[in-house]
């Protein structure tokens, strides 16, 4: 985990220093999160693609304003994503006002969701989806069915020690994913 955090810090430093390859790496690491946040909020793949493009263009152009000592790069990106999504919602509202003079649409949810919490949720869900089938089944039973490790062992017919070790290792993986996203150094 320390390694992941160190890597993230090193990457952030190269990015701030204007290394194009760092941008490519950052895109590789975080474009899925940016795109998923946009698609969740906007519900439209084309708009989400636009947002994703804008976020990375804005990040590169604004890289001098990014201070690796103050924030995690991913948190900074999520902040840009939140603003860009909000702008898109606003543009849509204006568009509707012009084109839909007679409209039955009421109560459209234009308020952006709290993206930071959503970002955490999406990251964790993503990490869970990447677990192997057995540890994934174990943690799902622990998280969502509230079973104890003894009940899980019984349910899945596997040794108690295996359940405990899957729980610990999986929980550490999930935590590591959140720490890379939040950690500053």
């Amino acid at each position: 985990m320390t390694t992941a955090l160190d890597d993230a810090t090193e990457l952030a430093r190269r990015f701030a220093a204007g290394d194009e390859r760092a941008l490519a790496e950052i895109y590789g690491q975080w474009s899925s999160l940016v795109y998923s946040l946009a698609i969740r909020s906007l519900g439209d793949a084309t708009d989400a693609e636009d947002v994703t493009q804008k976020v990375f263009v804005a990040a590169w152009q604004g890289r001098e304003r990014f201070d690796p000592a103050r924030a995690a790069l991913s948190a900074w990106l999520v902040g840009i994503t939140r603003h860009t999504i909000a702008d898109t919602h606003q543009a849509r509202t204006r568009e509707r006002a012009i084109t839909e003079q007679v409209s039955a649409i009421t109560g459209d949810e234009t308020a952006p969701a709290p993206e930071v919490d959503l970002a955490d949720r999406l990251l964790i869900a993503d990490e869970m989806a990447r677990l192997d089938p057995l540890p994934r089944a174990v943690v799902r039973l622990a998280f969502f069915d509230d079973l104890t490790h003894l009940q899980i062992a019984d349910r899945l017919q596997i040794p108690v020690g295996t359940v405990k070790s899957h729980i610990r290792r999986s929980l550490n993986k999930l935590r590591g994913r959140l720490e890379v996203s939040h950690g500053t150094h």
Partner: protein
Amino acid sequence: MEHTDPEVLALIALGEPLTDPVVDHLSLCASCRHEIEALRSTVSVARSAIGEAALQAPPARVWQSVRAELGLAADLEPAAPASSEPSRDSPRPVVQLDVSRERRARIRRLIVPIAASAAAAAIVAGGVLWWGATAPRDTGQLIASAQLDALPDWPTASGQATVSERADGERVVQVSLDTEVGDGVVREVWLLTENVDGLISLGLLTGSTGEFLVPASVDLSQFSVVDISAEPLDGDPTHSGDSIVRGPLNA
């Protein structure tokens, strides 16, 4: 001073009871307490992530546009994260809910291929894991029921669903379905939102009836439609789109 076993700390973070020696140690050890707190906040995010899908990667053209707009080297490619998944070009609608229903502009929301059925994937991949509920200890109080009607591809199918709440507060969905499916196909029970913007797998139906626990955090007023689908055993945890029967829960 010997610290508490990390496996025990993880269980405590999940809410399992503490033994006396552990309590004694924790009262003295800030480091173990801190560890529990950190794990606990991870658990709380994870518990809120029920029904969320894995992240989706944007299509390759997005990077090409970024590269062009910023004038970066033409051969610069994004480095894939260590454990990346194959990207999909666009969100795949999980299920065509009602062909006759017009999509209204205001529900232009994403129909996410929610991998709530990571559990289903586990079953398919693992082959031996059974995800359904244990048989409820008591029959509980009936809180909702649904008549499950056939979809056009399954004209002779029909089924029923009831939801009851047991004395311990657990909610149990009981379904019955008279339709069999062919070899290499299983039947999966789902809860859907009315607009199909959310989808939760309850598990696989073996036989003509089955009982499934509803996770405590699921709001049945939102996930108010019971759906049973035919799922090919292809390892894809998302809904196949081939629903056999479906019906709204009525209190």
